[in-house]
């Protein structure tokens, strides 16, 4: 959980969270809880989503026009607000993800091969 004290890492994580949200929406519209669950599952529970940060992030993405939102019904008949990726969002995701991969690869090269953990 990202707490308030981690403000330094919060900036990096904010952008990253946005990216992850967009990524999960590539596969189709989803509601808030679904998105959170998807990220946790896909990352094999390494990344735990702070639900408190989720909604501001969703709102940010909505303001920028990268996703749209609408009330709908979930699979088990619950009313929920569904988010859909827009074309603009798709392009943004491609760009950001590409950037991320480049940076991650570079960091890996600098750090060298991973030590075998005990």
């Amino acid at each position, binding site marked *: 959980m990202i707490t308030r004290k981690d403000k330094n890492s919060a900036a990096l994580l904010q952008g990253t969270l946005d990216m992850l949200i967009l990524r999960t929406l590539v596969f189709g519209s989803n*509601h808030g*809880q679904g998105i959170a*669950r998807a990220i946790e599952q896909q990352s094999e529970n390494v990344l735990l989503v702070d*639900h*408190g940060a989720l909604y501001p992030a969703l709102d940010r993405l909505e303001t920028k026009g990268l996703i749209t939102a609408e009330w709908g019904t979930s699979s088990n008949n*619950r009313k*929920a607000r569904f988010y859909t990726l827009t074309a603009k969002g798709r392009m943004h995701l491609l760009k950001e993800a590409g950037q991320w991969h480049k940076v991650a690869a570079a960091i890996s090269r600098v750090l060298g091969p991973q030590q075998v953990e005990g």
Partner: protein
Amino acid sequence: MFGRRKRSHSDLAEELRAHLALETDRLREAGMTEEEAQAAARRNVGNKTRIQERFYEAHRWLWLDDLIRDVSYGLRQLRRNPGFTAVAVVTLALGIGANTGIFSLLDSVLLKTLPVKDPQGLVTIRLPDPHGGYNGISYPTFEYFRNHNRVLSGIFASSIPEHLDVSINGHAELVSGQVVSGGYYSTLGVNAIIGRTITPHDDTPGAPPVAMISHEYWRQRFGASPAVIGKSIEINGAAFTIVGVTPPGFFGLMTGFLPDVTASINMQPLLMGDGSLPNDKSTWAVEMVGGRLKHDVTLEEARADLGLLFSQTLQSAQQRKELRIEVLPGSRGLSVLRDRFAPPLIILMTVVGLVLLIACANVANLLLARATVRHKEIAMRLALGASRTRLVRQLLTESVLLATMGAGLGFVFAAWITHVLLSIISSAGLPISIRAGIDSRVLTFTAWVALATGVLFGLVPAIRATRVNLTPDLNAGRGMAGGRRGKPGLGRALVVSQIAGSLLLMVGVGLFVRTLWDLQEVDPGFNAEHVLLFTVEPHLVGYKGARLANLYKEMLESIQGLPGVRSVSASRFAPFTPAGPNATISMSSHAPLPDENRTVQESFVGPNFFQAMGMPLLLGRGFSLQNAESGPRVAVINQTAALRYFGKGSPAGVRFNLSQQEGPIQVVGVVKDAKYHSLREPRTAMIFLPLLQFSPDAQRVTFEVRTAVSPQSVATVVRHRIEAIDRNLAMMDVKSLPEQIDQSLMPARMIATLSSLFALLALVLACVGLYGVMSYSVTRRTHEIGLRLALGAEKRDVLRLVVGQGAFLTLTGAGMGVLGALGLTRFLSSLLYGVKPTDPLTFIAASLILMAVGLLACYVPARRATKVDPMVALRYE
């Protein structure tokens, strides 16, 4: 920002509820029971309220939101306590308003730069007289500057505004006006708002007379009608055409003067009445020359260049040695006002600053008292999680709100003060028009003062109020907790400092008022009633050498014969103007002692001078017309000179020498001492020499006419007589001697009046403050008083108790005030006259008044204390 509320509060709430439900579902499907799933879901999702908060925080400018909330809460609080609010606001209004009023005056007299384009590049050029004051610069010299300088991008000449007779459509009135040369407006960078400005073309000989009018005059006299362009007006009897109107706010170069009419300089001889001849520019003199420095030229370079040019215009080596022009930065304009009014205004600014502090102390005390009333509310808010900083911020907002309301109301008070000040100044008879209105600078100043004041008086009470022990304050009733908390120490300290401040002010007032009284009582040594003064400068119309002496003789004889004239005389230096030359005295009978000061002042006066001025002769006689060039050299000395240099015996007939004057001079009379230059001057040894003998070709001479009736009525007759002698000779500076003396008193009068007003204000504030503290103290001690009464105390014991406390506070305050005053009043000594800065009488009087006020303030609370019913008080928790 806070506006983008596309999603309503309930919308998000609903989404979060849905989120929670979905999460619960998932966990149930994963195998948990309903309760377990719900609990786990709530744990996973986290604090719903917190999420909502973060959501909104991400959107808004939190501080602005808080501010608005604080302000509206503060306003509600203030409205719920109208009594408190009213008292605080009025107190602050008086304090802040006083500061605003004095500042607006200070600003326009001392601080503001001219409302022209780029005032920093302006310079003024004047010619100081070696003996003090300023001379005019001759027009040919100005033209020489104009044609030959290399440092100015623009140059102009102007006169100092004075009163002119203007006639429009036959209606005559007196206005303020000046003349300017063609470069004036272009150098200052000022354009006409309608019509055109005066240009160099209007300087050419034979150009039609034109004039511009000020915006104010245009509004008042012409109703701001565009038809004013081309209209004809008469100034001093000559026809002028109005060609333009200057922009609002523009008043030229002299701070404090607003000329209604500005005419082209060609008309100077006609308008200024200074004796110049219309057709001979070499007789013209301009009072001021100004210019704008070229971009890359410094003031020093300009001084050098113009100084050199000036010396090239001088005829004799003697002149070149003595005369030097002065080149000064002109950005703040020329101000005769500044020198006269700067000290009093600065004193007044200090005084009102002190008054404001006293007012702040009062309001701080009020707030402290309020804090005890609100302690429950504050304890509640702290318990609910508000941070102390947040609460202090909110309380400070309330304080600043109070200060702002006070400042708003204060403008009314400020306007009244400014009005009083200006009426005092204008009573001195100078054609001053100080625009001390509310402009943006004054508003900015007031806003800052309000902010600073709010923080000043609000900070400590706010911090105090939030220093709360939660448990006892939430639990307890009013009694013990309410009694023990809020130690009165701070409140008492504030009142003591208020009283000290009030004493300081009252001592100051006492000193100023006594200065004014003493000045007014000063015996000037002559009889000022019914004396008319005027000055002539015949050299401007071509009189030289022997013709001057003859002219003066003729004028004296002629005016003496007029009806209503009792005696007439002349002098080279007008009474109550800066001093004449000094000289060293030496006598054959008396070898000078070492270290002895042999300096005396010289004054050149005509026959019958002492009769005209009403100076009594103690011995011998004055001068008559016989004492002209050819006769023996004689002098009249004053008492001080006699005592200092002529020993015990009678000085009559004794001969002495003066440096720079010819031959031994014989004393023919001794006259009583008098004040020659100002009411404040110390004893001076004065030697009077006959004008016609020692200085018959004086270029500028002042006449003193003692009249049987009022001086004004004789002035016209005298004017006609002078015109009969020489039509071109003009009378200048016509006024009565009492007016001249009165003018010199004006700054003293101003300080005395205003500081009395403010000291009274401070006294009232301190009294109210003391009353408040005493009242509170009695309330707090009701229980104790009831106990004492029940145990057998008499009413007068209670009285003694309360009054004793009040007296203690007052005495402490007075004591501190006295100490402070003893230390600080020495800074005033240059303004005082006839009283020492540590004058005991003033100190004692101030202390007594303060004690009386202190007792008065205690009276009501003391009586209230005696009326306490022990039965009620004992039950009063």
